[in-house]
């Protein structure tokens, strides 16, 4: 013990150095966020790498068990396959057709004539009654955005009364709070990228950037993206709010459109015709 004390006091400079150095490093790492983060990160890296190595090793040890389970699964699948190939499929097949349960189906059509510069614009597509198109069907743009309604149909062609028409009114909602409104174009605005949402109830708060989608009440399926509000709360003379929106549809470059076939359109129309207007 005495020798140890002699040894320590003989080299006291070194031991004192070690003590003070450790205190200094400790203070540095403790009190400086940068140094602390570096220390923590590197120690995390070391620990993580160690775990990774360990994991590789563990996986190797488990190989036998994994092999067994794979073989069992293989056998099961093979027996199932045997059962399938021996069935005479031509004899008795009952197909559950999920497609017919779907309310809306889309039919792609090519635009053969388009106009955007007139007050009332109409475009023509290359699908007609042969393809099952009827007057009043909704038409949407390929990526996002609405186009209009089918107006007149011939055997192989159909005309679309596009949104850029004074008679076109599409039922829309604000995606945020489901406030109803109707989408119209015109009224002093003949920019093909802009339209108006009108007849939004007065208590609704509308903000620039709100997304407008179709309501699903008319021929359009619900939730088709229409545009984003660019000017909110435009004052009108009636008791409703209006807003200007940027359309997602680019009518000037429209090449293909989707015609929306609504399976329940006839049914809905028939049902609603029972309600007399001024009952």
């Amino acid at each position, binding site marked *: 013990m005495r020798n140890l004390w002699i040894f320590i006091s003989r080299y006291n*400079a070194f031991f004192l150095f070690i003590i003070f150095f450790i205190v200094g490093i400790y203070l540095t790492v403790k009190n400086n966020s940068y140094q602390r983060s570096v220390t923590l990160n590197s120690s995390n890296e070391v620990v993580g790498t160690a775990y990774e190595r360990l994991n590789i090793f563990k996986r190797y040890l488990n190989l036998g068990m994994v092999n067994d389970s794979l073989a069992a699964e293989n056998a099961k699948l093979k027996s199932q396959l045997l059962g399938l190939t021996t069935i005479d499929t031509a004899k008795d097949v009952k197909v559950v057709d999920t497609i017919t349960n779907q309310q809306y189906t889309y039919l792609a059509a090519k635009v053969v004539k388009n106009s955007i510069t007139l007050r009332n614009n109409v475009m023509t597509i290359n699908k007609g009654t042969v393809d099952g198109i009827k007057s009043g069907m909704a038409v949407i743009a390929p990526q996002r955005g609405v186009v209009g309604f089918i107006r007149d149909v011939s055997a192989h062609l159909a005309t679309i009364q596009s949104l850029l028409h004074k008679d076109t009114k599409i039922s829309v909602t604000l995606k945020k709070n489901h406030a109803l409104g109707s989408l119209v174009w015109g009224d002093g605005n003949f920019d093909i990228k802009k339209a108006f949402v009108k007849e939004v109830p007065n208590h609704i708060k509308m903000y620039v950037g709100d997304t407008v989608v179709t309501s699903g009440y008319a021929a359009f399926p619900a939730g088709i993206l229409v545009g984003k509000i660019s000017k909110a709360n435009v004052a009108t003379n009636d008791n409703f709010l209006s807003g200007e929106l940027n359309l997602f549809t680019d009518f000037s470059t429209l090449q293909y459109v989707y015609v929306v076939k609504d399976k329940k359109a006839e049914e809905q129309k028939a049902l609603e015709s029972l309600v007399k207007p001024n009952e």
Partner: protein
Amino acid sequence: MNSRIIIVNVIRWFLLLFVQIFLLKNMGFYDLSTPFIYVLFLLLLPFGIPNILLYLLAFGTGLTLDAFYDTMGVHATACVVLAFVRISFISISLNRDAIDDPEPSLSYMGFQWFSLYAFLCVVAHHLVLFFLETFRLTEIGYTLMRCGLSCIFTLLIILLVEFIFYRRTPR
């Protein structure tokens, strides 16, 4: 240790730290070369100082600098390293019993011994300082360059100060 040495060292401590904190802290060439003149205080402490007192003074001086530089512990650690280098160098290069000079300054020890002494201490101090500040080895080239350029700057100023206060004393 008489009271005169203590007073001189206290005045030196205040002067050097004042210059370091209020003048040299704002100096630097392209963030590459920063002088740390305050180490001169630790270099010029008298020979007879006990090791534990030397370490405490070094640590305390470093902590004071840290308080002003917002780098808790970095300067303190570097100063402790400097103290260790100082003790080692003096015990190797000088015969402990034959030391009759009061302090290791240029006036007493001569240019050759003092410049080597200052060089080793400053290099050790700056290496620890800059590596603790960077705290990673990926930027080692940049750190070494900063360290080297700062060493040159610090040494130049230390020698300049020592020559200004040079007193021709009989050896």
